[in-house]
Structure formats: C-alpha cells, structure tokens
C-alpha cells in the first residue's frame, strides 16, 4: 500500500462520514479483491433495486415453452411453467438483500450498543447482558428458527430480518465487549474519565470510533450469515412462498422436480449462482475492508 493511501486512511476518522466512505471506496478499488467485491455488491444492488424497472417480471405460464434451454429470447432458459428465468433472477434479489440488510443493521446496532455499554460499565449491567447473550448462544440457531418459523407467520420480510437479528446479536456483542474491555484501559479513556466527560461521550466518541472498521466488517459478515439462514428457511419451505426471490426459485425447482430434466439445468443453477456470487462479493468486500482498517493485515508494508 502506498504512503498516500496510508495517510488518507489515517485521516479517515476525523473527516465527514461521506469523505470517509469515499476514501474507503478509493482504497477498496486499489486492490483486486476489494474492487471485485465492491463492484459485485454494487452490481447486485443495482440489479435488485433498479433492474426490475427495466425487466418486467414474466408471470404468464406458456405451456409450449417449459424448460427451454438458454436462448437469445430467454438467456437463462425457462421454468416449469415456461416463464423467463432471467426476469425472476432480476426480481429475486430484492427481498434477500432487504432481509440481509435489516438483519445486519439491527444485529450491529444492538450488539455494538449493548457490547460497548456492557464492556465499559461492567457490574450488574454487564452480567445481565452477558447472561441473556449466553442463553441465546447456547440454543442452536437454525433448529430454533425452524421451530419459530412454524409458529410465527413470517410473511413480512422485515419481520424475518428482525427474527434473524434477535438470534444473531450475541456473538458480535461478545466480540465488541471484549474489545471495549481492552480499549477502556487506554490512557486517553482514563483522561476522559478524569475530565468527567460522561459515559455517553467516552463510549461513543472515544472508544467506538476506533472500532468502526471492525463494525463495518461485522456488518458485512452479518449480511452473509443472514442470507444463508433465510435461503435455508425458504428452501425448507418454512417461510410462506410469497413474492419472488432466489430462495423461492430454488424451493420451487426442487418441489416441481426440475432436477429430473436435463434442460432445466440453467433454471436450477441460476439462483444458486446468484446467491453464491452475492455471497462471494460480500466476503471479498469484508476481507478487503478488514485489510484497510486493520493495519496489521496490510500487505507489502
């Protein structure tokens, strides 16, 4: 990494948030994996939120066009009712990304707030938060989701995100808490205590900003985890099959027996590849962010 980049990165925290984001993106684009991850995520976001405006979804069953191979008219072939697979892929990303983002947002917010306060305040607050977290952590997540999903009608995608977040925050909370436990020993935190700057200022101005990189990475990892969980739930048929998303496509391909038709290969693989590519982009992005924010992982310096 060049000296110029280094100084830019060092200057990040004090600048406005927008400036910091611009600098981070600049640093991302300078490394191959970061550029790939960033462009990949941008591509999927654009496809999921802008794409539907240009590609109307094909919902009309066409009995003469069932399981067609990819062609100029149907680039990804057709499904068991002769509908265009490409349009389903374009429309199918939105819900997945919304659930993943909702989950990651809530998870990160809850985990960072509780973890920072528990680590800094200690005492009874710490004990209670840790107790709750440990209880949630000891319950196997996916089986619990299976049980919950059969009780709660998860027809609202935001509700699904909230449910995933309710189970997802403890791990990140513990990580944040242990980092705060080490950061609170810093001299500048002691100086802030001595100056009576208040808990809110110390936690949110002195301690948390130095963890912003870690939080950004955790956010991305939270999205990855949420995507796996929700697609798993949908595939098992535990979330009502409303709307279009890649999980629903997979589930339908499975229950309609598409795997028995060799011409349906593109139909089955399309959502699998879409999910994998989105996950891969997020992983590359997270890894590059980690390299940017964590100087110890920087190469060639």
């Amino acid at each position, binding site marked *: 990494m060049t000296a110029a980049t280094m100084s830019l990165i060092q200057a990040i*925290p004090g600048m406005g948030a927008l400036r910091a984001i611009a600098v981070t993106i600049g640093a991302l684009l300078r490394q191959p994996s970061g550029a790939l991850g960033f462009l990949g995520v941008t591509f999927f976001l654009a496809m999921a939120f802008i794409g539907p405006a240009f590609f109307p979804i094909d919902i009309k069953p066409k009995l003469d066009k069932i399981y067609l191979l990819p062609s100029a008219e149907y680039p990804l072939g057709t499904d068991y009712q002769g509908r265009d697979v490409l349009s389903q892929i374009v429309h199918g990303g939105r819900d997945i990304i919304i659930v993943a983002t909702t989950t990651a947002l809530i998870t990160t917010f809850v985990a960072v707030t509780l973890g920072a306060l528990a680590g800094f305040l200690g005492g009874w607050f710490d004990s209670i938060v840790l107790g709750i977290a440990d209880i949630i952590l000891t319950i196997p997540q996916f089986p619990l989701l299976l049980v919950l999903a059969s009780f709660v009608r998860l027809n609202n995608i935001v509700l699904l995100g909230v449910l995933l977040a309710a189970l997802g925050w403890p791990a990140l909370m513990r990580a944040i808490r242990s980092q705060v436990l080490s950061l609170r020993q810093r001299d500048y935190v002691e100086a*802030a205590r*001595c*100056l*009576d700057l208040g808990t809110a200022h110390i936690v949110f101005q002195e301690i948390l900003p130095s963890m912003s990189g870690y939080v950004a990475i955790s956010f991305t990892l939270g999205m990855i985890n949420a995507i796996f969980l929700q697609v798993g739930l949908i595939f098992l048929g535990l979330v009502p099959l409303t709307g279009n998303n890649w999980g629903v496509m997979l589930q339908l391909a499975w229950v309609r027996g598409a795997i028995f038709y060799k011409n349906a290969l593109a139909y089955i693989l399309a959502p699998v590849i879409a999910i994998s590519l989105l996950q891969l982009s997020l992983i590359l992005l997270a890894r590059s962010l980690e390299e940017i924010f964590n100087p110890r992982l920087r190469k060639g310096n």
Partner: protein
Amino acid sequence: MTTLQASPAGARPGEGTPVPLISLEDVRCHFRTPRGVVKAVDGVSFSAAPGEIVCLVGESGCGKTTAGKIAAGLLAPTGGRVLFEGHDIARLRGQDFNRFRRGVQLVHQDPYASINPLHTVGATLAAPLLRHRFASGNAGARRRAAELLDLVDLTPSADFLDKYPHQLSGGQRQRVAIARALTVEPRFIVADEPVSMVDVSIRISLLNTMLRLQRELGTGFLFITHDLALARYFAWGGRIGVMYVGRMVEIGLASDIIARPQHPYTRALLSAIPEADPEVTRNKARVELRSLEIPSLFRLPSGCTFHPRCPLFEEGTCEVATPTLARPAGSVEGSHEVACHLVTRSA
C-alpha cells in the same frame, strides 16, 4: 546537570498552611493477584497546599504512579483516605464530587497513548470545554482552545487546532495533554513522568512551561519521576518525597533533601546523579549499597524494607521493626522527615 540547580522559585511550601488542597492520609493500595497480595502503596501520607509543587521520586515499581492515580481519584485506595480541601473524596457526592473531579487532573506519562488518535487537537480540547461550560458554542470552544494552546507554548495556536495527534511530536503531544488538563481549570495537576517519553532536548522547556503555569495560574503539581535530577529542577521551591517499594522513606523541602539527604536510599540516589563536569562526577562520594537487587513485591523484607541493601544496616534493629517518618536529628520542625531507625535515633 549542575545548571539545573538554578531553577525558578516555586510557591512557598506547605509549612503552616491551614487546610491543604489535597492530602493523602495513610493511603494503602493492595492488589490481590494469583501469586499473593501486592502492596503497591503501603501507608503513604503527604499533602499539598494550593499552588504547591510536590515531587514523588522512586524507582519503577515503587508505587509512585499508583499513589498519583489515587491522588487524582482514578483509583480507589484499599485503605486510608484522600482529602480534597479537607473532605474525604470517597464521601463527596454530586456538585462537591464534580468540583474535586475537575479540580484535580492527570497528565499521563505516554503522550502517544494519552490522546485519542482519532480526534483533532481542537476537538480534544473542545469536548471538556463544552461539557463543563467553560466555553459556549463551537466558535467559543475554538477560541478558548487556541488560548490554551498559547498558554502551553504551542504557537501559532491556529496551526495546531486542526492537526491530528500523529502529525505532532512527542513534546507537542505532551503540551496538548497539558492543555487538555487545563480546560477544566484544575487547581492541582498530577503529572506522571510527563517528560520521560519526550526527547531529552526539549524536557527542560516542557518543565519550564509547567513551572510557568504554576506561577501564573497558581496550579499545584504532583510531579512523579524516577529521575532525582528532574525532581531537583522542578521542585526546587517545593517538596520532594522519596518512595521505596510502596512506602515513603523521606519527605521534605526540596532544598533540604538535596543538600542534606538523610535516608541512605536518598543518599544513594543522589550520589548516582551524574554531574555536567566529569571531574566532579568521578570524585563524587558514591554510596555503596550492600545489594543492587530491588526486593520482589510478593516477598517484601521484614522491618525496614530497605535493610537488605542498606549500608547502615544494624542487625537486631532494622529487620525487626518498621521505621516510621520522623524528624531527623538536627533539622527544623516540619521541614524534613525520614523513615530510618538509625538516622532518627538521636533526635
């Protein structure tokens, strides 16, 4: 370093002052560790009048930093009391506690760790100014921050307000740390080895800045150092306390301690200071210690903790009883106290 002796005069020491600004009374700080109890500070008492300079000197591990943190209220003692204007700080509540909290500030040893690297100098100073209403509005805070930077000789101050700590040198950072302590207009500053991480060439100017603050603002200082030469320079008008493994072994007027050291440990420390003139250094009478080993804090020697190293060691006395601070033979009342059986015997 003989030139250092011509140091500026500080405030008059605490002789006969009615209520000391801050005083430690028989303060103990024992840490429980898996290997046993560590008596980091074991029965230390001293006080500082408003505007007075008190210097704590001792080897690393003698408890001087712990004593400083206790005086600043950042660490609760396991025994004894800390009084601020005559009131036990452990009993202060609400407004009274806030007055103490702001009244006593700390300057850390390491200026690379004591300033948050993510904030500009201006932001670092503005936070306490705004929170405690020493300035109103961002413009007001900026103006006051600039004044404070001028006060600690970071000029032109406008150039420093928008700088990040990594753009500053160690000495400049330490000045920012001092300015930050000054934001809340403290009456007493605990300076924990404030120049030990700073280049030797600028130590004196940093000490002079602090001495000027003491003169102009009347701020008292507890100056913690392992370097008796620095103590001699900084506390020339004040008092020096010498600590050895958690106890105060000698305390008195700086001029008295330097000119007439009584405790064998103080004598050994003073004799080890090199002088600017190599001829003088070579001819200095060295105090020979019986051992150079600092005792382990887990197994302190019985009686006087210094006895295994002490050149005056007398069997049957020193390893039996713990000496307490008392006036040495032939000194003026209140000017000098020493904890040594042999030195105080004939008093």
